[in-house]
């Protein structure tokens, strides 16, 4: 869960121009700095003429010195020099300018100085007390500037900053600046070296380094040490991570980052990235042999030594291994992997390795996409990292094949399509959903994970054709056929008895059906816009679903009946169950499109089980109990309705409701909305789902998540977000933060405070609250630093 899960990401910060620290130093052949540079590549242009304008020109023939006095302008090969007084010594080939001299480079960099002694092509020379402003308006001032051999610029007693100097009193120190006895820019190495450098914030020196260097910002990749990060936590003590980036080749690099911790010794953490012609992959690994593992050997109840251990316990060697990669075979096919393996659930959290993570889904896949077809073959391995996850309850699933194909040309005049799904999984231990079935004691209510092996191959084909009669009625006959081959071998255990009979068995399940969909769209126009109203009716004739409960339900456990499933021919969400019996679905849809392009759509309806076995009422035979209390189990289903509202671009809201068919009680309600209006960005998600005790949901599930960010000024934003859990009637996660961009055009600042339950599984008490403070400071053209601390305390501090 990233820090700004509630608030949509702000629009991309203004991209600073490509210029670097004073990119007048950058390596382009054009001139740089106070003095003109002619890189060796371009020959001197023989017939380039130097233009010189001034109020008064004084020729001193015997010394061959031409002196221009009074607002002198000199242009030579795209460079300009303005000064009060310029003496051009033709014999010594020197140009001496004095009195508020202004040198302008080809690339627009401007240098102000008091006196400049330049070579005649304004290429090399000495400058006194120069001030430089680069094209991406970073600023450098130095007592003396010297340029040698077109490759090396040396500035003595120099000050560099990217901040805007305030006009009315330039003496006020800029927000931040780097003062150095000497700044050397090696153009050939594209490196900037500082000697005896002091970093000053608001004029106060806060860091001093004898030597300090960084690549010229126009350089994107450069081997060298990256900014170190510091940390502290109870279990590992003080830690410092000093990453070294090694750019092996333009398409390959490695980052080796030893983490020295005061209590646990040294952890080696590394990342290797490699890009090839067809794709790219990366490997991230970290490992440590802990010196003091007892720090992690927390007991749930400290007083009682043999109480449940939470946390990694006395495990000494802790490691993580992650790798992902994707390669294109050709323009339609690609394959790849995304693997995450850990020594234990807590290692990434404890050592803050690439941020905490609660998901560890490893997958290997081959994917192909054609014009109207899609093929996906993959395998899964899951590693549960929450406190309640038990590894042997999570399945290894291989293969999972999904192959969807729609014929481009009509077959029998209509559209023929087929879908293939193959799933095969194995897990070692069962997972039950437990509940009180309303009021009784806790018991197993549903089996949502059967131990043993389960494999299924399903093929279904469907045909449909739309006819429109002269008066505008739309008739869409359709037919479908489905065959499933299932091999089920659940481990035998007493607890599984009531849900699944064990023993190795194979089943063949078939289903077929025909149906007709009727629509009659009407349209009207008035000043408000275009109105469309459309009654919809659907009838499906088909035999009963067979083998309900004879095998596990692994991929069709979730069933949310609302307007998005009203007109599906099979309302189950997976292949393990299939809707049987004959059914009619009826609905009415109304759409308004205003002249301004806003769109509003509302649809409602109901589903009727006509005859045969109602697959949803028979959910009690299904091991996962899917279908029970879904609103479809009665012959007359609940009423469902949905509305979508897109008044203006980037402002959209969708709602879905389900009402009891007798009492009109709200069985489920959802609102999902997002808005980016001018300076306001909002995000809302609300859900309320009625109790379903027969599925293990004994309480109403209700929660709302809302986040917003407002740009008070162009550069300052304030944001906040919260998630409120109605069941516990409290905010289980809330976050506030602010950000200030371009403070004096050289600092971006972002601060976030997050308060949430400490779901880090090693927390001793279940209800302890974690307070996290994140501060990120970005010094334009230099780099950024971030500091995050988190402290968790128990909600009832007074108690323990």
């Amino acid at each position, binding site marked *: 869960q990233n820090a700004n899960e509630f608030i949509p990401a702000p629009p991309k910060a203004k991209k600073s121009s490509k210029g670097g620290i004073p990119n007048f130093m950058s390596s382009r052949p054009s001139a740089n700095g106070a003095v003109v540079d002619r890189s060796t590549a371009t020959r001197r242009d023989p017939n380039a003429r130097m233009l010189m304008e001034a109020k008064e020109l004084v020729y001193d023939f015997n010394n061959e010195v031409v002196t221009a006095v009074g607002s002198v302008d000199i242009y030579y090969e795209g460079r300009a020099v303005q000064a009060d007084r310029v003496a051009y010594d033709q014999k010594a080939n020197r140009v001496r300018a004095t009195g508020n001299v202004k040198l302008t480079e080809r690339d627009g960099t401007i240098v102000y100085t008091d006196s400049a002694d330049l070579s005649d092509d304004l290429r090399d020379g000495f400058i006194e007390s120069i001030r430089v402003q680069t094209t991406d308006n970073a600023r450098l001032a130095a007592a003396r500037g010297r340029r040698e051999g077109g490759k090396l610029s040396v500035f003595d007693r120099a000050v560099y900053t990217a901040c805007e100097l305030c006009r009315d009193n330039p003496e006020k120190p800029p927000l931040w600046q780097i003062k150095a006895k000497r700044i050397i820019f090696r153009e050939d190495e594209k490196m900037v070296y500082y000697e005896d450098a002091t970093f000053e914030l608001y004029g106060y020196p806060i860091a001093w380094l004898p030597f300090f260097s960084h690549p010229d910002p126009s350089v994107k990749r450069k081997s060298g040490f990256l900014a170190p990060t510091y940390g502290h936590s109870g279990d590992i003590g003080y830690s410092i991570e000093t990453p070294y980036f090694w750019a092996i080749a333009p398409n390959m690099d490695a980052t080796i980052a030893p983490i020295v911790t005061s209590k646990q010794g040294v952890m080696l953490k590394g990342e290797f990235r490699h890009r090839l012609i067809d794709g790219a992959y990366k490997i991230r690994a970290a490992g440590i042999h802990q010196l003091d593992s007892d720090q992690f050997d927390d007991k749930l109840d400290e007083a009682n030594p043999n109480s449940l251990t939470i946390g990694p316990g006395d495990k000494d060697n802790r490691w993580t291994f992650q790798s992902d990669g994707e390669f294109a075979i050709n323009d339609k096919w690609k394959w790849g992997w995304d693997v995450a393996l850990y020594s234990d659930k807590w290692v990434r959290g404890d050592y803050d390795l690439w941020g905490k993570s609660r998901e560890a889904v490893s997958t290997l896949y081959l994917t192909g996409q054609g014009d109207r077809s899609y093929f996906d073959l993959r395998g899964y391995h899951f590693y549960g990292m929450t406190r309640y996850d038990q590894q042997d309850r999570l399945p290894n699933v291989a293969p999972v094949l999904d192959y969807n194909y729609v014929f481009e040309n009509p077959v029998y005049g209509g559209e023929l399509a087929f879908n293939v799904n193959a799933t095969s999984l194995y897990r070692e231990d069962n997972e039950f959903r437990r509940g009180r079935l309303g009021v009784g004691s806790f018991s197993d209510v549903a089996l949502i994970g059967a131990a043993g092996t389960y494999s299924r191959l399903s093929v279904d084909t469907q045909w449909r054709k739309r006819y429109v009669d002269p008066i505008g009625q739309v008739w869409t006959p359709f037919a479908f056929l489905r065959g499933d081959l299932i091999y089920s071998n659940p481990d035998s255990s007493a607890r599984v008895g009531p849900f699944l009979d064990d023993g190795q068995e194979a089943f063949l399940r078939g289903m077929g059906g025909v149906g007709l969909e009727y629509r009659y769209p009407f349209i009207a126009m008035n000043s408000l816009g275009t109105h469309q109203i459309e009654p919809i009716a659907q009838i499906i004739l088909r035999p009963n679903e067979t083998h309900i409960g004879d095998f596990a339900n692994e991929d069709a*456990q979730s069933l949310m009946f609302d307007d998005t499933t009203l007109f599906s021919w099979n309302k189950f969400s997976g292949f393990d169950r299939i809707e049987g019996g004959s059914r009619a679905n009826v609905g009415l849809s109304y759409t308004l*499109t205003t002249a301004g392009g806003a769109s509003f759509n509302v649809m409602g309806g109901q589903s009727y089980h006509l005859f045969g076995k109602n697959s949803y009422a028979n959910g009690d035979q299904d091991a996962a109990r899917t279908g029970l209390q879904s609103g479809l189990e009665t012959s007359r289903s609940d009423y469902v309705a949905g509305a979508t509202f897109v008044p203006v671009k980037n402002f959209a809201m969708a709602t879905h409701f389900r009402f009891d068919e007798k009492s009109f009680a709200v069985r489920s309600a959802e609102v999902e909305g997002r808005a980016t209006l001018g300076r306001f960005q909002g995000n809302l998600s609300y859900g309320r789902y009625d109790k379903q005790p027969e599925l293990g949901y004994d309480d109403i599930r209700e929660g709302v998540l809302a986040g917003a960010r407002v740009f008070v000024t162009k550069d300052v934003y304030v944001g906040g977000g919260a998630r409120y859990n109605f069941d516990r009637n409290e905010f289980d996660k809330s976050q506030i933060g602010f950000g200030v961009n371009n403070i004096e055009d050289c600092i971006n600042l972002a601060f976030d405070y997050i308060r949430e339950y400490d779901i880090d599984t090693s927390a001793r008490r279940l209800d302890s609250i974690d307070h996290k403070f994140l501060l990120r400071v970005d010094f334009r053209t230099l780099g950024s630093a971030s500091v995050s601390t988190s402290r968790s305390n128990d909600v009832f501090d007074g108690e323990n």
Partner: protein
Amino acid sequence: CFRPLYSEQSYATGPSAKGEAPVLTNLRRIDVRPIEGRIGNTLRNELIFQLRGGEAADATAYRLDISIANRAQSPIVDPFTGQPETRTVSLSVDYALKPAGQIDPVISGQEFASASYSYTLQRFADIRAERDAQNRAAVQIAGKLRNRLQGYFATGK
């Protein structure tokens, strides 16, 4: 007042094939550009049926460009495990309809749809439920795009 959208006499812009409502002829002449990704493939297949009703493609008169933004959120989270109890997928689609050979669109805009599913600690069941929710949202959007397009052809706006 209201009149049938697909009836032959219905006023509409553009050519009409033999005995067919002009709206339908126009809908059949839209070439939906390929959309990258599984959700794009599902949305495009469903939209093509909504536009052509299963018939062969006609000479292209319009080109429809679609881009999809896919997001998922969890309003209800079990505070102790941090795992969601339900999850809502939302698709936001930007579309632009351009007459063949022209650059600036005649109509463009955004459509939005969401679908939810129950989330448990069985991650495989969650992955399949999310895939189904994405398909449901894609089918919703295909229907809304058909309504928008046929509204345009029937009224010229």
